[in-house]
């Protein structure tokens, strides 16, 4: 694999909170344009790892570069090159759809013309034209999540981090959401996604499963299934997660 092709490189990345090791020496890399699934039971350390990669949380030890920038010293450069969609819905509920798009576009330094074009394109794709002037708070959850994703990739980042983006969303909307993810990946945006849905895990190019802060496996869904001698990702996950000592 070409070295240039790697957009995320992690080596023994660790985060401790006192005695608690949330993320324990995880080592992996992610390639450009890849959809990388990041799985694990609740409390396995997924969100902590993701927050370190986004420059929101400083690692305790280990090395990591995102889009070629160091997670210790170049967090602001990292932030220019990534998009992030947190577990908690975090667009402004008391702003309209248009106002949210304009704000985040502006913050990422898009020009007025770019914001205008992107807004039209995005509203078309999501079918949100008629809702453009409504407050985000009034949208159904599925639409909010799609909007949130589209805003996260508005500035065409190199990598987009999605933390359980489809939690609580109906199956049809989840399917549509993954269409959006594929479109982004086709445009060359690397997608780093955590999920609890094993059908979604199948959509990923490669997946890793975290157990108690450690990364237990990392491979394509097909290889993992044959390695564990099972037919579905559900069973792979179940076998691994059963050994977990912590959780909620």
């Amino acid at each position: 694999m070409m070295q240039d092709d790697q957009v995320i490189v992690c080596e023994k990345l660790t985060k401790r909170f006192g005695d608690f090791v949330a993320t324990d020496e995880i080592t992996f890399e992610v390639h450009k344009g890849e959809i990388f699934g990041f799985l694990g039971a609740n409390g396995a350390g997924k969100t902590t790892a993701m927050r370190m990669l986004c420059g929101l949380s400083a690692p305790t030890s280990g090395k990591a570069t995102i889009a070629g920038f160091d997670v210790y010293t170049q967090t602001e450069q990292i932030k220019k090159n990534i998009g992030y969609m947190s577990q908690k819905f975090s667009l402004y509920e008391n702003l309209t759809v248009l106002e949210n798009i304009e704000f985040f576009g502006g913050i990422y330094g898009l020009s007025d013309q770019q914001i205008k074009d992107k807004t039209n394109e995005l509203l078309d794709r999501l079918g949100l034209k008629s809702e453009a002037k409504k407050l985000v708070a009034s949208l159904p959850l599925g639409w909010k999540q799609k909007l949130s994703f589209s805003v996260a990739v508005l500035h065409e980042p190199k990598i987009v981090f999605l933390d359980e983006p489809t939690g609580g969303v109906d199956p049809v909307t989840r399917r549509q959401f993954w269409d959006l993810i594929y479109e982004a990946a086709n445009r060359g945006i690397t997608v780093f996604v955590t999920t609890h849905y094993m059908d979604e895990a199948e959509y990923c190019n490669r997946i890793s499963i975290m157990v108690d802060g450690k990364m237990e496996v990392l491979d394509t869904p097909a290889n993992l299934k044959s390695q564990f001698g099972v037919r579905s990702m559900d069973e792979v996950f179940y076998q691994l997660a059963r050994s977990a000592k912590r959780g909620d």
Partner: protein
Amino acid sequence: MRTLRFLLRKEFRQIFRDKAIVSLIFFMPMVQLILMPLAADYEVRNINLAVVDHDKSSYSQKLISKVVASGYFRLAGYNQSFKEAFGLIESDEADLILEIPQDFERNLIREDKQKLFVAVNAINGTKANLGGAYLGSIIADFNAGIRMQLVRPPKFSTFPVIEVVASNWFNPVLNYKVFIVPGILAILVTMVGGFLSALNIVREKEIGTIEQINVTPIKKHIFILGKLIPFWVLANIVFTIGLILARFVYGIVPVGSLLVLYLFIAIYLLTVLGFGLLVSTFCDTQQQAMFIMFFFMMLFILLGGLFTSIDSMPDWAKVITRFNPVRYMIEVMRMVILKGSGLMDVLPHLGIVSLMAVVLNGWAILNYKKTN
């Protein structure tokens, strides 16, 4: 700079979207400015007086009607015995007892000498003290009147009399409102700015949008500026409304230059807002921020010299007031509005408040962490 524009647009949209908050921001200070100076008055009136008149003479009647006519006292009871009157004090119906002894009139005329007894209910200290003093001066006045009637004043006074005549500068009629309104306006502007800014960043923390901001390449000082400017504008508007109200409701026209006043308030607001934002960066919930602000606001106001003079505070309290921005604001308000002080006079205040603004805002920027 471009980023700042988007931030400001967003903040203003959010503020003005919440109609309830907007009307509170403007309406509440107005109501307070109209009500508080009328109610919060140093002058003590309606002191309840119980009279025990053992003499029942024309002189004692004259004295009583003089006391009641002064307007400060209300006759709570006209009692036969001190014991009876004391009952009124016990049931809190009376604040003062004036006991006029038997033979009051006779002794006064014959012996030119008579003692009166005044008992004060000291539970309400201010009322008791002032009531006692008022009563004392009314009796003294009554006494002087009697002397004039009874004793012909000698052509040349046998003893020298020094009379102290005070003239009250800058507030010639000692109008309490003239004194209190600028101070209350200072407090209101401080409260509006302080609370709004303290609750703002912490609100974004609570609803989680701060994460989305922190993951953008936005500069910390731009973010803080984006929070500072909208509240600065709002507080200036509140201040202006307050000045207009002071003019038309209380007839208070600033003697000094409005320019100096606005220059000071511009910098002072940066201090207050910087403090609010600093609190906001420390707290995780709006409740925490609210309580911390409440604590400091109480301190700032009580040690700000609005209700109690700083000169009469103990030394340690005086030291604290030096770190209290509200103190400087109240002083400058009174100096410029009542006394007409110019830029040079308020320069020391301006210097201190500027320093506070730099420290507090710098600290807020440092303490706002995009990476934890």
